[in-house]
């Protein structure tokens, strides 16, 4: 039973446009959410996080939105760049235990 779901296995976006990656979760006890980016043959790299007491967190081109009532979060990348092409993982934390989604592979086309 997937507690953290990333329903889109892949996403293709044109350079300069917005990329929106979605994540849904089922456990209302999750209190911290993170996005990681992963290139092939490398470990995941932390991108951005959000606490459950907030609904938005922004860092440069990356913004994470949290809708607690819908148990949904999204990562927006604006503008998208070819170097953003990677697999993006959503992860949710409850009492220091991280539960990961399956990832969404983003391709940003020049």
């Amino acid at each position, binding site marked *: 039973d997937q507690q953290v779901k990333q329903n889109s296995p892949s996403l293709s976006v044109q350079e300069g446009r917005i990329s929106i990656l979605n994540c849904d979760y089922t456990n209302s006890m999750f209190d911290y959410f993170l996005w*990681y980016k992963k290139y092939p*043959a490398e*470990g995941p790299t*932390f991108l951005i996080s959000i606490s459950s007491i907030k609904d938005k967190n922004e860092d440069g081109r990356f913004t994470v939105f949290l809708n607690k009532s819908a148990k949904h979060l999204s990562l927006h990348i604006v503008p998208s760049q070819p170097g953003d092409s990677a697999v993006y993982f959503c992860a949710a*934390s409850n009492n*220091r235990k991280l539960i990961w989604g*399956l*990832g969404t592979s983003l391709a940003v086309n020049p």
Partner: protein
Amino acid sequence: EAGVVQSPRYKIIEKKQPVAFWCNPISGHNTLYWYLQNLGQGPELLIRYENEEAVDDSQLPKDRFSAERLKGVDSTLKIQPAELGDSAVYLCASSFSGPNTEAFFGQGTRLTVV
């Protein structure tokens, strides 16, 4: 500042053989994690250490897997004996202690059991 260092990067062994992975976390990080990642999946926690204490090893298959973190710094993860299904990427990560802290990952060790 050096990141999380893992070795080896790649390992190919025959089934039933033992194998060990090594991890050196970021200096100052008290929390150390070992994850397993299969192709097309997210990382799955095997064990979490706070200093030298294993505080969450509920997902570690203890019949064949073992881990240690002597002196609360470096850590090793061992599989003995390895099975075909153990082929995966083994990731080590570290973080500061406390809630809501992000973990930093090493490059992983890709294990192939033949």
